[in-house]
């Protein structure tokens, strides 16, 4: 850790102590919630009301404001999990383990949302609920990767060992994601032929793009709030018998 400047390393050391983190999370969550709600409100207003109707797809394209940000988030969270996994393996940081496993259900949730909204968007566009489109297929495989992480963590009883296992799996998964993505894309062009994926690049107008970006940032803040909540629970579960939890209970009683 010597190549990290001392103040930075001290900061990480302090924030990564469970009671400190717990208190810090409590202090940040209200602010994050306010920012999230503002961004969400602006994004929804812009996307559902202000943005003009698409001349090709009609109003069905408005699903883009959740489908695309959810798909972005599903990838982003998996990468975050791998980063946490790397930190957990190298520096044995408990907090990174906690953040990693707290992120998994949220990422799986976004992946699920991306799949369902993709299907709901696809029905009026393609006429069927499911098409083996490149993005939907990779998203489905990503969902399996998330489920693998969640079940592996659940299956190993010793939670410290489970956290190590999940860190390794997340790193292996993140190396594979680009390979899976490109293989699926190649497969898609081979078998699908001329089906144009309408979800990929709609020629997008600024009034349509701004709400999309607003929603994407709003989802990032949602992730922060949700992961902090889940991490608080996970920390409590792991440290039930420690001093700071006892102090916390006494303060509440």
């Amino acid at each position: 850790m010597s190549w990290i400047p001392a103040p930075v390393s001290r900061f990480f050391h302090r924030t990564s102590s469970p009671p400190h983190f717990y208190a810090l999370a409590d202090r940040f969550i209200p602010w994050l919630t306010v920012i999230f709600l503002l961004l969400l409100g602006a994004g929804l207003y812009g996307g559902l009301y202000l943005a003009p109707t698409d001349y090709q797809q009609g109003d069905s394209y408005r699903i883009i404001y959740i489908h695309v940000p959810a798909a972005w988030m599903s990838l982003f969270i998996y990468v975050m999990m791998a980063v946490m996994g790397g930190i957990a393996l190298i520096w044995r940081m408990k907090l990174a383990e906690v953040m990693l496993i707290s992120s998994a259900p949220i990422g799986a949730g976004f992946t699920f949302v991306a799949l369902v909204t993709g299907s709901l968007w696809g029905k009026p566009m393609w006429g069927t609920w499911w098409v083996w489109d490149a993005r939907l297929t990779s998203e489905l495989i990503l969902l399996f990767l998330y489920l693998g992480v969640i079940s592996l963590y659940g299956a190993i009883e010793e939670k410290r060992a489970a956290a190590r296992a999940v860190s390794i799996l997340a790193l292996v998964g993140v190396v594979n994601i680009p390979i899976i993505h490109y293989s699926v894309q190649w497969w898609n062009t081979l078998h699908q032929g001329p089906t144009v994926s309408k979800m990929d690049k709609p020629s997008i107008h600024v009034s349509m793009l701004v709400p999309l970006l607003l929603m994407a940032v709003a989802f990032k803040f949602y992730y922060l709030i949700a992961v902090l909540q889940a991490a608080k629970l996970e920390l409590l579960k792991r440290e039930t018998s420690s001093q700071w939890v006892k102090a916390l209970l006494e303060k509440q009683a």
Partner: protein
Amino acid sequence: MPIIQAFWAIIRRDLLLAFRRRAEMANPLFFFVLVVTLFPLAVGAQPNLLRAMAPGVIWVSALLAALLSLDSLFRSDFDDGSLEQMLLSPHALSVLVLGKIIAHWLVTGLPLLLVAPLLAVFLGLPEQAMGTLWLTLILATPLLSLIGAIGVALTVGLRRGGMLLSLLVLPLYVPVLIFASGAVDRAASGLPVDAQLNILTAMLLSALVLVPLPTAAALKMSVN
């Protein structure tokens, strides 16, 4: 060098063990043939349909056969304490693990090459695709053993890890399945397959380098 001696000793011991347990060794092979036989029975025996499906059917069956055989990779070593001894060896665990994976492939992956022509005949795969089928099997079955090793190492400590293993490993097998069956498919219609074979080779080489490390880490976690 002692580490190379240890590496060969592992391969030799595992091959010897497989030979002593040869009754078990044939099981994945029978499974492979059996699954392929099920497809004509399920979808009907129209030659055109079977010929179109042949690459996919053979490769899905190979995937399932590999999955079935994975458990034997570390199971007996875990149960009888040999794995603990390997962890305590002064040699790098990842090298020993690579030896185990290679031995496992020689025992479970290589025999698939022998029955592949039989299955190709069953499904009416054109003769011009036969060479490609062999090549993809040579390149991709070691990949299945390598990628699978990570999954087994993560789940070997669990009493009922079988279903979990398939959930962990099958998504990672997707690129192998796509490129291998894609290559056979193209070969059957007389198209060039260099790109697919090159990608499979690249994947195999990088897996040989990248897989032993996480596998060793996962085994350490499992022994705990």
